[in-house]
């Protein structure tokens, strides 16, 4: 059964999107200030914490939240579960937007963004031992791959409505994708596997600066496993939201099966997390200080969705599914925040709390992401099925 994706339609500008546009406007002004006055004047970054909210949230948590395309592609193409096809386009759109925003966040976060273009070009100067080089190259490549993976959605629209040159371009493009998609998808699965684990490797290099409950040689694996679970969760979450907002079918049966995969990955994560801590004799730290509290909060956020969805019958109940997915997302975000900021202590009494500019820009970036999502699903065939209820937002 193939669902045909169709644009939602309707006006793009309404009260909600105007509000988002306002938030984006505020951050544009703040970003002008950031580039004029520099990072020191506008952010709370310092020598102890050279990365802050923009990296921890937009890049590290943001790309993990954008792993829907990756996680669904694994199911769809690696395990050949063709039935998940209606989920792939919305998942790819959130991924493409999420990764583009992460790339944008890196540009505003680094001290000398005008040199970023050199990374892919100056091959001779690559430090092959650097996980950040891997992240930079992989993320750059993956942003491109994601938009290419998503390109058929745009080409289909242009084929139908475009005129002359645009239609011919769309037609030849679609013919090309018929043949080449499998290679692009392969890249789309390989690249996140590489950089999502490398994002963990970065903190592994922090060594003793990272609290022992988080510092393990398995950080790369934990980051990879949790990002896949977050990918499934985000697809469920997004189905719920677009179901409620755009009145699109929710495919509960399909999402229930998808959450089965999420449960397996989630269980795997918790087993690795605990086995690692126990085998390396760090059980005592789990009941030690306020970091222990943080650790248990994190673990609870991971464990509760696991329990909620452990029963196959409960998975069929969409509200349960949605709540579990939301908790799962919070868990993944908290795990990344803890690893990158909270459990990271560079010593010498360095502290970090994001500045107003950092927070407002982060809000603006997320607003822009939501805004683009709404605009694209309204104009291009992303979501499956026909609109069955009047659009509400």
């Amino acid at each position, binding site marked *: 059964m193939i669902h045909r994706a169709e644009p939602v339609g309707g006006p793009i500008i309404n009260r909600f999107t105007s509000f988002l546009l306002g938030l984006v406007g505020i951050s544009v002004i703040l970003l002008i200030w950031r580039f004029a006055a520099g990072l020191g004047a506008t952010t709370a970054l310092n020598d102890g914490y050279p990365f802050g909210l923009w990296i921890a949230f937009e890049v590290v948590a943001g790309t993990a939240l954008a792993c829907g395309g990756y996680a669904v592609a694994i199911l769809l193409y690696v395990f050949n579960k063709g039935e998940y096809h209606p989920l792939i386009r919305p998942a790819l759109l959130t991924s493409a937007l999420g990764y583009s925003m992460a790339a944008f966040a890196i540009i505003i976060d680094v001290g000398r963004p005008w040199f970023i273009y050199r990374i892919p070009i100056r091959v001779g100067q690559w430090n092959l031992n650097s996980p950040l080089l891997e992240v930079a190259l992989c993320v750059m490549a993956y942003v491109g791959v994601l938009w290419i993976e998503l390109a058929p959605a745009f080409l289909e629209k242009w084929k139908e409505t475009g005129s002359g040159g645009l239609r011919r371009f769309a037609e030849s493009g679609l013919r090309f994708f018929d043949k080449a998609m499998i290679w692009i998808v392969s890249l789309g699965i390989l690249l996140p596997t590489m950089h999502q684990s490398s994002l963990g490797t970065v903190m592994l290099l922090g060594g003793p600066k990272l609290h022992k409950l988080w510092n393990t040689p398995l950080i790369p694996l934990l980051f990879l496993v949790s990002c896949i679970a977050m990918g499934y969760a985000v697809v469920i979450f997004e189905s719920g939201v677009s179901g*409620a907002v*755009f009145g699109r079918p929710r495919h509960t049966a399909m999402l229930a099966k998808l959450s089965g995969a999420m449960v397996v990955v989630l269980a795997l994560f918790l087993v690795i997390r605990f086995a690692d801590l126990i085998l390396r004799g760090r059980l005592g730290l789990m009941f030690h200080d306020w970091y222990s509290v943080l650790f248990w909060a994190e673990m609870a956020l991971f464990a509760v969705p696991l329990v909620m969805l452990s029963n196959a019958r409960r998975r069929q109940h969409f509200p349960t599914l949605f709540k579990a997915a939301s908790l799962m997302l919070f868990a993944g975000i908290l795990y990344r925040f803890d690893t990158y900021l909270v459990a990271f202590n560079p010593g010498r009494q360095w502290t970090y709390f994001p*500045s107003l500019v950092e927070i407002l820009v982060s809000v603006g970036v997320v607003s822009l992401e939501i805004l683009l999502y709404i605009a694209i699903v309204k104009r291009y065939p992303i979501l499956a099925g026909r609109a069955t209820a009047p659009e509400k937002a």
Partner: protein
Amino acid sequence: MDRSVMGRVIADTERSNNGVDRRDFLKVCTMAAAAVGLPASVAVQWAEAAESGGLKPSVIWLHGQECTGCTESLLRTSRPGLAELILDLISLDYHETLFAAAGHQMEAALQQAMEANAGKYVMVVEGSTPVKENGIYCKIGGTTMLDLVHEVAEKAGAIIAIGSCASWGGVQSTPPNPTGATGLPEVLEGKTVVTIPGCPANPYNFLGTVLQFVTLGTLPALDAKGRPATAYSKTIHEHCPRRPHFDAGRFAQEFGDEGHRQGWCLYKLGCKGPVTHANCSVLHFGEIGTWPIGTGHPCIGCTEQHVGFETFIHQTVEIERPTPPDTYPPVEEVRHGISPAAAGVAGLVGGALVGAGYMAARKAAESGGEEEES
């Protein structure tokens, strides 16, 4: 006396004491190759040659006026791979400190090695040569050091001066220099002498030079003073880990003060890093990451003639080749607190997220699109 037995005994002792694996061995080779500017692939060649027991060029090692510190630092490194590498890769045919033999037996070994390997052997000299009064201040087996170096250099394939004494005279050449202690390049004027200054010389610089000659038949590119250019073309200051403190104007003013404890620049304590050409700041001594500046002592400029042992330890020096950075970091560290507005907005955003999540969950439960029958 069977010289190769000698070598084997030392190597075996080292091996049984510490056991060097191939990985460590390759690391040593790679560092030595890097020290003289050779690619890592050469290191693999060396390691393979050592394993197969090939090469084994004859090395004649002479001692002049010195403390044997260079030999000590070569053989008694924290990682025995180095001693092993030397004894596996070369045939040490004459070495006054390491020989079990003595007296005439030993002098015979020298003559034998020189004849058997004429034109091919590597001559290594450790220590300065006194030239005053025809060199009577240093004699080995009745021959003056002055005569000995001329004699051995005559048929040598390559000549290496290890340590500051052999390179330019060392501590004993400082005024008034009663014995006329002189470096090898001056004594053997007209001959190519590779100098590896340092007190002691960094073993990797030496090893890289010897191994390059042995495997490739060439010497590293040398600067005007005969030093391998890769290792000695930059000053300590240029790659000093404390350099950012220098640029930021953060100096330790005296030993044990706040800046000294914070690891700030030692320039004002008399560090000779800005005029001393050596690679200590990137290839540390002792292989455990320590070196004078790393331990909090200013560089004394031991590799540099007229600096090491001649200037006072706490005397500051002119900066050679001042290289200002693009930007200067602030002297005062910038530390931000938590601004009340930021905390408020963070709370607001966090609350909004949780609230929105809750509302979305409720809404998803109540309404939403129709179920798709599949």
